[in-house]
């Protein structure tokens, strides 16, 4: 056979070989390599996050106090913006041209900026601006609105319990595998401690998008979507009426009130004064509110009820009596002569003038320093402990049982206070170089003892219950499970028989003793005054009380900073709180007392900012209290931009911190002012007491 000429078949060969090459390549791409499938899926599927609604919060009376409010963020995909009519756009948004450019500039420097991805142009635009915007949005390609929910508070109280939310910070994003940039997270209060229940679970919706990132449908009809799970609702144990009343009593003062229901451990009211309106820390003006609160020298954001350490003073004496009776074997009729002072070695602890104490009841009634110093010495230097260190350790153990020096029980971010351990004195005096005399003031609640008001209230509740208690809490557990932390009954290791003498003593305090100012006929209040010396000025006024004596319904600890003697402010305030709770109203004859307590101003003259000329005091107050006068809802964006407002805004407030939307403050807003921190004309503290 004649060999075939190559030129006749070469093209066939080339065609077939080329086709084979293409087929091999296609086979490897389409059948062998599955990565293209993944890439195709990545191409077309966009995960749309479905944010769960945050759990609602109800108070003790099942009234809704915290709910969610829909707000709209104005978003923009910069690359899609074309032919923007800025004048019209600004008019719709009620902003001026400067703000427009400021927003644009802020957006461009924000982390994660990309002209191809949605960016927040303006946060939390108001409902009417949103309505207007929706109508004209089609004229502004690239702009769209995104719904977000913010917190709305239906009350002006309990800010320290409720806490607030804010955007997660980078550390939280890094340490948790849940949070993502822009998520809201509880920063303080129950928002923080119940964050996991409140936040719910984010869902995702898979959307098919085209090359321009436009959604063209749901992926697989939503089969692979994950539903968002709404956050759980919380039921507070706080009685909002009592809380509001207690906050009103504490206005113009620093200090706190904590009221606990002894039979359940439920916190009825938790006041830290000065307080603020929780609505300040939500909405578009949040940044400004935050800035102002942080700048306030009275530190309204600081939760004194949970975070501030005070020496308990004489309010510690009932507990001292209890532990002494339990460990040293003294009876309730143990006698110790006061003699006006307690002298031990070179040390002298003075006592006030009072009748002789023929037992622990009268010692409490008269708040005898000598008696309790002696009991403390009896306790820590007791032979059964071997040495004073062991005695102090035992003493500390009892205190811890009563909740002093630990915060394990509370469902709010709290500090544990301070109960000294022997190491502390070893450091101070050297090992074995100290005795009861060195720390004798611990026996009367002074010295190196630091307790928080909530711990005092809890201690009072334990005494009221004669040794049993539930951990105090502000949120009712949503389960009856007896294993739940707040459903477990705890017991201190003090025999129940020792309590009656102490309680009788506390009753006498109110009837005939140091706390007569807390007397209210028919309420059977048992209490104990305290006057805590402190290096910052006037003594702190303290009072712990519970009522009624039998079957106690409320235990209160009141702490008024620089209030002087316990009977001066703390005792009447406590009695008013108890009366309000038990009787729902204040008897007419006590209205004068109530008014005096409410008007008492212990923080004026206001601490002055250094180098501030005195004549500008008026302005200073206006500036400081401005944020408290901001609105709740709706948002305070004026209907029309007039040149006057614009000018005022641009000249006075250049702030707009961080990512917050620019804030406009109108000085003429007529908004109800929260009672706790109402700016009032300066007035001297009332006379007497």
């Amino acid at each position, binding site marked *: 056979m004649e*060999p*075939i000429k*190559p*030129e*006749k*078949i*070469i*093209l*066939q*060969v*080339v*065609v*077939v*070989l*080329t*086709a*084979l*090459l*293409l*087929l*091999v*390549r*296609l*086979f*490897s*791409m*389409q*059948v062998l*390599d599955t*990565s*293209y*499938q993944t*890439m*195709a*899926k990545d*191409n*077309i599927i966009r995960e749309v996050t479905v944010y769960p609604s945050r759990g609602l919060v109800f108070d003790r009376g099942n009234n809704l106090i915290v709910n969610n409010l829909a707000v709209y963020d104005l978003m923009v995909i910069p690359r899609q913006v074309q032919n923007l009519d800025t004048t019209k756009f600004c008019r719709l948004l009620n902003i001026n041209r400067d703000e427009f450019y400021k927003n644009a500039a802020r957006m461009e420097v924000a982390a994660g900026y990309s002209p191809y991805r949605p960016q927040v142009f303006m946060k939390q635009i108001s409902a009417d601006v949103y309505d207007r915007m929706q109508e004209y949005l089609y004229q502004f390609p690239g702009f769209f609105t995104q719904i977000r929910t913010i917190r709305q508070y239906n009350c002006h109280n309990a800010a320290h319990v409720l806490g607030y939310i804010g955007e997660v910070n980078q550390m939280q994003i890094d340490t948790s595998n849940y949070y993502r940039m822009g998520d809201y997270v509880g920063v303080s209060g129950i928002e923080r401690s119940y964050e996991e229940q409140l936040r719910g679970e984010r869902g995702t919706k898979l959307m*098919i*998008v*085209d*090359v*321009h990132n436009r959604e*063209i449908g749901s992926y697989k009809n939503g089969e692979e979507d994950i539903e968002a799970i709404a956050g759980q609702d919380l039921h507070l144990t706080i009685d909002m009426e009592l809380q509001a009343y207690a906050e009103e009593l504490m206005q113009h003062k620093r200090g706190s009130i904590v009221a606990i229901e002894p039979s359940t451990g439920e916190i009825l009211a938790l006041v830290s004064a000065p307080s603020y309106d929780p609505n300040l820390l939500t909405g578009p003006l949040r940044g400004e509110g935050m800035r102002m609160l942080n700048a306030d020298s009275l530190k309204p954001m600081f939760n004194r009820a949970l975070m501030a350490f005070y020496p308990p003073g004489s309010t510690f004496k009932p507990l001292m009596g209890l532990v002494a009776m339990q460990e040293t074997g003294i009876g309730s009729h143990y006698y110790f002569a006061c003699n006006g002072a307690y002298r031990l070695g070179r040390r002298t602890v003075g006592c006030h003038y009072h009748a002789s104490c023929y037992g622990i009841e009268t010692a409490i009634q008269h708040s005898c320093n000598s008696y309790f110093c002696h009991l403390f010495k009896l306790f820590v230097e007791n032979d059964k402990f071997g040495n004073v260190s062991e005695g102090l350790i035992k003493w500390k153990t009892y205190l811890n049982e009563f909740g002093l020096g630990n915060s394990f029980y509370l469902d709010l971010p709290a500090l544990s206070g301070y109960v000294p351990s022997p190491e502390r004195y070893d450091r101070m005096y050297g090992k074995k170089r100290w005795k009861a005399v060195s720390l004798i003031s611990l026996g009367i609640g002074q010295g190196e003892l630091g307790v928080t008001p909530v711990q005092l209230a809890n201690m009072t509740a334990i005494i009221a219950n004669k040794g049993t208690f539930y951990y105090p809490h502000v949120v009712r557990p949503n389960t009856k499970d007896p294993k739940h932390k707040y459903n477990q009954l705890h017991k201190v290791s003090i025999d129940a028989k020792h309590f009656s003498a102490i309680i009788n003593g506390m009753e006498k305090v109110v009837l005939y003793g140091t706390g007569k100012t807390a007397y209210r006929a028919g309420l059977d209040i048992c209490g104990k005054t305290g006057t805590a010396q402190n290096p910052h000025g006037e003594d702190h006024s303290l009072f712990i009380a519970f009522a009624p004596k039998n079957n106690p319904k409320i235990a209160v600890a009141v702490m008024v900073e620089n209030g002087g003697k316990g009977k001066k402010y703390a005792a009447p305030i406590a009695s008013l709180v108890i009366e309000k709770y038990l009787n729902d109203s204040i008897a007419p004859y006590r209205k004068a007392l109530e008014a005096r307590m409410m008007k008492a101003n212990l923080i004026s003259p206001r601490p002055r900012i250094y180098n501030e000329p005195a004549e500008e005091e008026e302005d200073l107050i206006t500036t400081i209290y401005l944020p408290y006068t901001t609105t709740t809802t709706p948002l305070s964006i004026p209907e029309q931009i007039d040149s006057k407002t614009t000018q005022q805004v641009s000249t006075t407030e250049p702030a707009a911190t961080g990512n917050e939307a620019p804030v406009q403050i109108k000085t003429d807003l007529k908004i109800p002012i929260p009672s706790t921190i109402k700016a009032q004309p300066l007035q001297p503290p009332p006379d007497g007491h």
Partner: protein
Amino acid sequence: MSSHNTTIDWVLVFTYLLLVTIGWLAIYTADFNELHPEIYYLGSSYGRQLLWIGIALLLGFCIQILDTRFYTAFSYIIYAAALVFLVVVLIVGSTISGSKSWIKLGFFNAQPAEVAKFATSLALARYISSLGNIFYSLRERLIAIGILLIPIILIRLEEETGSALVFGSLAFVLYREGILPGGVLLMGVLAIILFITSLLLPFYYIMASVAILLLLILLMRGKSGIWEKLLTYLPVVVAVITASLYLNDVALLIILPILFLIALLFALYTQKATYTLLALFLASFIYVKGVDFIYNNVLERHQQNRIGVVLGTIEDNKGAGYNVNQSKIAIGSGGLTGKGYLQGTQNKGNFVPELSTDFIFCTIGEEFGFAGSAALIGLFVFFLLRIILLAERQKSRFTRIYAYCVACIIFFHFTINIGMTIGLMPVIGIPLPFISYGGSGLLGFSILFFILIKLDSERYMYLR
């Protein structure tokens, strides 16, 4: 038409109709408009394509009515007219997507390069067949090459590089007819390959390949015919393709089979050319070094960039790189059987630019998977082999040359277009014949094809 020696090759015509139908279906899914699902909606590309198909069939019918001698007699005139057309477009043409190769005629944008394809084929067939002798003078060879070169230069001036390259494929016809010695063609191919690879691969890599190539040629020398050689060395090809697949090395996958082919052809020609091969090795050495030198020291920065982008050495994700990446994702995600007609997610999302025109193969790859792609490639191979078969059965040189021209043009389009969509070839924007959307292209290819059918139908007549 009623003559007994008029035999239309219906197999080829049916294949053509099948390809056009597939093309229309592909365009329908590529540009599917939910608001206008009706196929005749002229606002959509598929509606217009339907119109073009109708016009093409009408033209095809007209071509069959005309006397065969019209094409031989008027071939130079058609060629001249096409050249005038090309010159006119250079002056008054409008620029569409970077190339000034369009003439606006009302709603229709004509592309003279399409006309030039069949015009040049006709002129080439006419001229070479008129020579009538197997031994050509240098003048005759130069004229034949000139007929090819003039449209190439004109089209290149229009910045329509892809179409210009298409005419380059007609060099094979010159070789087939003995105008261009095989050696020259192969040297040309080798030069192109070496040019590209010298910019892509390390020097030693290329020289090792050349050495292997020459060694292969030495091994393959001998008296045995081409089929025996193919069979003997086929395992080598298979091994190479497998290896390159395994290494996922595209360069290897393309270059080594081509090297093998070149070796085979050289072996057939150089029976006793050890010295020639040695010279070739040295020449390659100098050539590769020279290309490197020119690229690095003579070319300007922007020229380097341009070449780099085409070769893929410079990342260009917004331009050609993006297209190819999306195209590969679309085709690769098709799997074995595809996502189903009108179900292609990448197609529907408009991820691949130029989907209905240059990247039309993506719709088939994604929606019909490997099975569909293989079927289409099979159909094209059948179509091309049928045309070559048809060419080789001609008594008339004119028809044979013309048929080869048709085969070369369609084959070039087919290879470059599909190769481009799967990342084997640089992105050269030329359409997939009969499949891609575009009236100009479809009419051009149809005329090219129907003239061939007409010529073949009278294969018992002697034409020149």
